[in-house]
């Protein structure tokens, strides 16, 4: 399994097609938590389940003002068809050309198969990786780790706020 970027690392910025004629950059999402969900391919059954689960949890993720972004090496047209078929409410990015270049930046590329790992990154408001996890490629990692990361992030922010205000008070 690949060595994915660990927590504490600044998440490398990138720009990828989100539709056949639009791009999205990670820096566009600065100021809110972001989940990068690398997955091997559109249409394969396990991925379908994973994306279906995140789709279902979209309202829950919004409670944390978080944006979920799926990334695979499929092209923007393929993503468009997949998203339409599954009624996905979040963007899918095409790490298509040069193939897998963003996945490689995150250590989430499978050279032998030529596809992304099933890797999750929760990135904080400042663009730093807060939590990351690489699942065995055939296993849908679920969402418990993501929700736990959001909560820990919120707690850290609150604690930090308390430290700041006690500093000001003294």
């Amino acid at each position, binding site marked *: 399994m690949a060595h994915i970027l660990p927590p504490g690392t600044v998440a490398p910025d990138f720009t990828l097609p989100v539709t056949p004629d639009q791009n999205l950059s990670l820096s566009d999402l600065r100021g809110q938590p972001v989940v990068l969900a690398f997955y091997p391919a559109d249409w394969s059954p396990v991925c*379908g*389940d*994973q994306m*279906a*689960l995140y*789709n*279902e*949890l979209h309202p*829950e993720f919004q409670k944390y003002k978080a944006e979920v972004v799926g990334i695979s090496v499929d092209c923007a047209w393929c993503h468009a068809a997949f998203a339409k078929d*599954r*009624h*996905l*409410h979040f963007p899918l990015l095409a790490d298509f050309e040069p193939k897998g270049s963003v996945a490689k930046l995150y250590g989430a590329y499978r050279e032998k198969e030529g596809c992304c790992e099933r890797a999750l990154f929760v990135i904080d408001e400042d663009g730093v990786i807060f939590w990351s996890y690489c699942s065995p490629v055939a296993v*849908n*990692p*679920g*969402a*418990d780790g993501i*929700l736990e990361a959001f909560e820990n992030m919120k707690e850290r922010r609150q604690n930090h706020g308390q430290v700041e205000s006690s500093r000001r008070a003294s």
Partner: protein
Amino acid sequence: MAKLKVPVGQADHSLGDEQAPVTLVEYGDYECPHCGHAHPIIQAVRKHFGSQLRFVFRNFPLTQIHPHAEMAAEAAEFAAAKGRFWEMHDTIFENQTRLGMPWLAEAAGKLGLSSDELKTSVANHEFLQRIKDDFMSGVRSGVNGTPTFFINGERYEESWEFEDLVGAIEARLPKKTERRKVS
């Protein structure tokens, strides 16, 4: 091994003896074909173990891919409020391809419940919060699709075909010699 984060309690739909040595929890979706496949297997497994097994069903509808899953769950919860959960649960799984409001209303009628009351309840999403609570409890426990099973609070990841599930449950029953000692 993933654990069941919300323990089985009074609010759960449960079949069988509360004191049973093994509790099997299913997170399921009424429109999921795999859950439909699991349904008669669960019935056979329950019959096989009798009082040794308690079965609990929790809702995990993937509403974006299964357009009738949520209303079916709401109909089952409506029936539950009238003490008829398991009858509704069974008939829904036995008629998975017919789900939709007309059929659900008819099914309620056949159980002696009011079809109109059911329609109102579903339209007002009377029991939706409970279904969402089930769903989130599943997410917290690492449920990633359906059906997902937990045996005595531990995620069961192996095959749930009849013989495999029976084997897994048997392995968690107290040994026969120990049982003799207890009695």
